[in-house]
């Protein structure tokens, strides 16, 4: 296996972008990443694109070919990757494996989703496809409801409160307010969250990540070659992925994502590191409870203590560990296929010291954690600066 580095990173401004379409956003992100990498397009020999539901949301399939064509990169092989909300993270892993194996030398990994062309209930139905269509969604389940079940059991077993969950949203909005690419640039209070409309009890609107248009991209190449393109290569030192039951009702426990635990253990083993070695992490906060589960399952906090730790500010910027400096899915936005790649973009910027007002101090090692559905796919990457 060859060592793999990220040499370029870019993203589109996330948000409700009625003026731009699917291809405009991915071309924006892709061009930014390639320009950042300082390479010419004819060096690129492979592409992997994470997109969850373009067929449902814009009526477009065959995304790999579409993007290669409109990026002007034909005949480079271009492959769409789909793993629900983990599509971007899984695409990154595919790109990593392609370069590590020696099959490809310079790979662009993109992620993109255009979600605001259809109504909110159409989006809810499309995202529902991340669960078990025949046995969960058919019965009237929604994703907020599935995460509400997890929240309810976590509250019962560990005394986690709605207020603790609200602190996740407050912290992530605060980080997002310092990110010019974020969907929300405003801070909120615990009161805003607690008084917002209930979606699926106990989860309220401000416990949920928003519907977002956006795209992100990174350029990968062998580490040895990367040094001739950039003085600041960011090395991917671990890449791990695990699967679990597609339906939440088949899990033994609702208070952890077993696939996160397994992927994290594998990633830390590959990197020969422990959770305490991470200074900055982008974790999958599709709902506030999901961030609490994530920081426990990744090993940053003991099981059951994630809510309390968040309320005490231990996950805020430059505290014990800086969690979701980008604003996370809640503040930066969650264009589902793009999210996993955006996490890699943010960690790359953090490790290079390009975080601006939201820069985490002493950021040497970062982690990304991307979840598909209610936890049926989890992907973890660990990255290190030179």
């Amino acid at each position, binding site marked *: 296996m060859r060592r793999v580095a990220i040499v370029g990173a870019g993203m589109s401004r996330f948000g409700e972008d009625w003026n731009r379409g699917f291809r405009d956003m991915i071309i924006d992100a892709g061009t930014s990443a390639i320009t950042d990498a300082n390479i010419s397009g004819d060096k690129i020999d492979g592409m992997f694109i994470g997109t969850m539901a373009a067929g449902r949301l814009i009526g477009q399939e065959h995304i790999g070919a579409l993007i290669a064509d409109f990026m002007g990169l034909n005949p480079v092989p271009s492959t769409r990757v789909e793993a629900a909300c983990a599509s971007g993270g899984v695409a990154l892993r595919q790109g990593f494996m392609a370069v590590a194996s020696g099959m490809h030398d310079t790979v662009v990994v993109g992620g993109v989703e255009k979600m605001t062309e259809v109504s909110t209930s159409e989006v809810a139905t499309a995202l529902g496809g991340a669960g078990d269509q025949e*046995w969960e969604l058919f019965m009237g389940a929604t994703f907020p409801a599935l995460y509400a079940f997890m929240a309810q059991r976590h509250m019962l077993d560990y005394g986690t409160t709605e207020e603790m969950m609200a602190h996740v949203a407050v912290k992530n909005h605060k980080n997002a307010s310092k990110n010019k690419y974020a969907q929300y640039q405003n801070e909120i209070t615990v009161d805003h969250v607690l008084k917002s409309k209930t979606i699926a009890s106990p989860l309220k609107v401000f416990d949920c990540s928003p519907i977002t248009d956006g795209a992100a991209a990174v350029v990968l190449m062998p580490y040895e070659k990367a040094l001739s393109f950039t003085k600041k290569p960011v090395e991917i030192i671990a890449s791990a992925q695990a699967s679990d039951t597609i339906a939440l009702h088949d899990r033994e426990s609702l208070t952890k994502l077993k696939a996160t635990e397994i992927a994290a253990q594998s990633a830390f083993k590959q990197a020969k590191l422990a959770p305490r070695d991470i200074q900055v992490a982008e974790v999958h906060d599709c709902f506030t409870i999901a961030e609490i589960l994530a920081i426990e399952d990744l090993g940053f906090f003991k099981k059951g203590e994630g809510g309390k730790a968040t309320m005490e500010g231990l996950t805020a910027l430059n505290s014990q560990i800086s969690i979701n400096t980008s604003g996370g899915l809640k503040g930066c936005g969650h264009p589902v296929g793009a999210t996993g790649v955006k996490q890699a973009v943010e960690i790359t910027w953090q490790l290079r010291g390009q975080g601006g007002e939201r820069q985490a101090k002493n950021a040497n090692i970062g982690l990304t954690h991307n979840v598909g559905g209610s936890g049926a796919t989890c992907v973890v990457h660990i990255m290190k600066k030179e």
Partner: protein
Amino acid sequence: MRPGLALTWRRIPERYTLKGNKCTNCSTNYFPPRKICPKCRRHGKIETLYYNGKGKVYAYSEITAPPVGFELEIPYVLALVELEEGPKLTAQIVDCKPADVKIGSRVHVVFRKIQQDGEEGLIHYGYKFKLVK
């Protein structure tokens, strides 16, 4: 997605009668039914099992933002029901006030309309649950 006629037809025994199955090799019960026992794989012995339709609420949520097809149902209570024989399933709890549903509430199965493909389309039936009085 609107479930097609063939899909609905194939699922009728399971959705109308709670027909699941069990692996007699490891004594694990499954609902919805599985073709392969995930614990035993090729060594598993899968046999039909009809569930008695009794269970307890394991977790629940009152849904106020519906997916397509459930717009007229809100607010409705969706739950994970733990069946007496072991497996959990996802279903609505009906014929009660949402506030009456608690974790641990005893429930039993009822046969109900789940959704419909528009005004003149196929009506899909299946299981929902009621609180045991």
